[in-house]
């Protein structure tokens, strides 16, 4: 079970958090102007990387804030956590 360093609360057990899928997928500002394929790209297509992945997490049983995490899925090492809207601190 991970120890996750919530950017608002500090280090907490994974059981306090909820994973929220891939990060940095921005909801299109003008969905109506997108083709079916473009909309489907936003709606359905997600990466499933073995290695470094950018993820959304929610401190659901804590401050309830969403934040981003950089995690290596091959060994579960958390490389960084950062607030929504911030640029990833690692590549």
């Amino acid at each position, binding site marked *: *079970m991970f120890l996750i360093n919530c950017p608002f609360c500090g280090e907490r057990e994974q059981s306090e958090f909820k994973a929220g899928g891939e990060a940095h997928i921005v909801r299109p500002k003008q969905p109506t102007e997108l083709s079916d394929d473009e909309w489907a790209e936003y709606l359905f297509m997600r990466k499933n990387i073995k290695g470094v992945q950018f993820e959304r997490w929610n401190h659901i049983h804590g401050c309830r804030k969403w934040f981003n995490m950089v995690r290596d899925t091959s060994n579960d090492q958390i490389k960084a956590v950062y607030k929504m809207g911030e640029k990833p601190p690692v590549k």
Partner: protein
Amino acid sequence: MSNNLRFKTSKFIDETYRVSFKFNNKTYFGFKGDTLASALLANGIHLVGRSFKYHRPRGIMTSGSEEPNAIIQLHDNSSRTEPNVRATEVEIYEGLVASSQNCWPSVNFDIGGINNLLSPILPAGFYYKTFMWPASFWEKYEYFIRKSAGLGKSPKVADPDIYEHNYIHCDVLVIGAGISGIMAAKMAAKNGFKTLLVDEKSYLGGSSIYDNSEFSKINNQLTSSWLEKEINEISKLENLEIKIRTSVAAYHGYNFLLARESLTDHLPINQRDNKVRHRLLKIRAKKVITATGSIERPLIFDNNDRPGILLSSAIKKYIDLYGVACGENNVLFTNNDTAYETAMSLIQRGIKINAIIDNREQVDSKICYEVEKNNIKIYKGFSVVDTYGYRRINKISIMKLSKDGQTVIGDKTKLNCDCLGVSGGWTPAVHLFTQSGGKLKFREEDQVFIPDVYPSDQISVGSCNGDFGLDEIIKNTLSSLKKFLNIDNSEYKTLEIISGLNQSKRNIWLLPSDKTIGKTKSFVDYQNDATSKDIKLALREGFRSIEHVKRYTTTGMGTDQGKLGNMHALGIISETAGTKMGEHGTTTFRPPYTPLTFGTIVGRNVGEFFDIFRRTPIHDWHVKNNAEFENVGQWKRAWYYPKENENMHQAVQRESKAARDSAGILDASTLGKIDIQGTDASEFLNRVYTNAWSKLAVGKCRYGLMLNEDGMVYDDGVTTRLGENHYIMTTTTGGAANVLGKLEDYLQTEWPELDVYLSSVTDHYATISVCGPNSKKIVSKVIPDLDFSDENFPHMSFKNAKIGNIKCKVMRISFTGEQSYEINIQANFGKSVWEKCMDAGKDFNITPYGTETMHLLRAEKGFIIVGQDTDATLTPIDLQMDWIVSKKKYDFIGKRSLYRSDTIREDRKQLVGLLTENPEEVLEEGAQIVSDVKKSPIEMLGHVTSSYYSPNLKKSIALGVVKSGKNMLGQKLIIPMENKNINVIVADPVFFDKEGKRLNAKL
């Protein structure tokens, strides 16, 4: 008790404390300090069980948690009965009752033993190959196979014991209290680390605590004496907590570990009441030191499984720790020096050693010379080729090994013995290390896998790290701990260590036989009866991956998870396939290291704590008034209120009728309520609901439908505008938490610019819904100060009011189609206001109704229930709710998806009403809907989602989803049931009061 077998010199056994116990209905005696295994051996009993597949007699093989054979049923026929318990781990107590498993009628005479004779036709994969044809017969085969499968009996009644869970945080966790674990704990604790030391045994010190050999000494003291002083010292350290009988079951990422602390299993039954039996420790450690030691390997030769064949280290432990001799005429069979330590222990007690069979040609360490000096015959370069004796070994035959170790040559010699100790070297116990994600490397010299890459802040020390000699263990433990803990002071001044063993080994995974392999039974996995023959067969049949061979032969799949034989299986695979061990890797080590009881896993979450539930503030009234309850989300909701002998149907019919005829009252407190405030609250609602919100006047209510981005209906409910920038949203009972989460997600991540604040207020309010033609009269009595006239208080509006001093929010909204008022009050006034309503409604036959009646009434009106009539595959258009989807709004969640190529298909499943041809016939919810039952395969058009008998319409009504259902109005469809086909007509989903007159009817 045979005196010949017990040596009254062990300080670990309290000979003044005699303990009686029963095994297979016979009473025996042992002493305090014995395990069931040591006590049975002291009584001359080796045969304790039958093997899983061939029902071969099996005896005690080891002295610890790695035991594959001596697994027994504890506490026969009681609520505490427990199968598959290792006799080697059970500390005996007064009144212990145990019996053999997997045998009938008895362990001495077992009918299933016939499988042993049939073994030539029961090879690996026998079941897969034999019971495949004809496929339709599988159900018949399965019955018999299941009957013969499984070990032991599970308890039939509730477990009387208490279990609990406990969180522990520490700087350093040391797993294993052998010599390196003790040293590690001392170094950590003395250097300021808050340290926890755990060991699965009932004593500290591991195998060194009974190491009285003159050949391995520390500072010129016996290892055992030196270690005893160390233990004495650490037990006084304040910074160190020590837990014995504590087995680490799992090592997860980020140094999170699970351990089981056993607290009462060693006590007499009558001392266990009201005490916690097992505690599951959830340990989060900053640093972990694994000192789990190593497990002696058996040797793989023909008939290597007879009772009386033990690991040589086990024989030594039974003598030195328990004072028990496993046999009176011993033979040791080894490929390394370990067995000579056992020999020295036997010699010291004057127990006969008939011979030592050593694979090696050269045997030249000090200890070997010493054994030889005692006139023990050592057969160098020999191997055991067969063993004899059915219920106990009585003879072995040996032959000379060829130079390359691939064959046996020369004459066969037979030797008598009643106990054979085997030693194939040692396997580091790397289970926990690999569970944590650690990577192993293979060390060719002595053919062991050892830790290589650590995934977290941890280290392995001692023999689990591949250090086997005492000098090596101590030297390497000290140096690696200094580095790991980043300390200068090791707490240990120069230690002088003498080690009389050398580490030479002649490793032959599968020992050769004079017979062809097909005629041998060389067991690799004792518990699952997998032999070397099976592994070779699997390879011949094309299996290459170890994981596949494992599953095909079941090697390593017993309750012992192959702690003894897995390495041999790997060795035989790589030898046979001509590949390298290191390249194969190992099979996956999975938690738990040793089996856990279900009680340990569940802890206190049993009975009413199994799943927590929520009660409304009015719950007690429902209980008092005979309500039956239904679980909705985590809530207990009143389902219906049977009167006298009413069944559910009768109660629901009465309640439904009363609600339309006069008045009904419902506890709606469970509905999710979200308080929404902020200058952008209206804009926010515009974006999350399909309809428009900007123009909703203050004091008005509106129904809203919420979609997912994929356009599918997610939740619904009425939202009320309390002020210019203030709304209260209601959600479905089950969806409340998820809706709040979804709204927060959008606010925080997509629309952070919006000035909107959300709070869950579900628990803050009690909600009482009074409906029916007389509802207005009732609520007017309850809230006399409020003007309930239709002019002042029309449908879909809201008023603040007071009941005495109690503030309340009243909404005139309806889920039943009747005039209906929802009174929201602070939760703790819920019950008193409910009672006031009941009182006020007395003259109007006010009838409390539950969720079932609510469902029926709304179905009459064709109102959907999200999650019952929808299942995340239906758009509002599919639900014939086009009216609620705004055409004007530029965007809302899910809008774009409503005209994807898939969502605009005409033949999507759509919500329709269904009327049965026979109005008395009520459909089953979930039943399939078809149009043609003659054409095979029958095309499934949809299913019934809601179905009731309507007392107000006096006929059966149903809702369902049907492909292209919108265009089928008036068409006949068929509901095929087990014994009959039911004809239905597709209808409008609104069955009752289509015009909605009753909402405003003047009565």
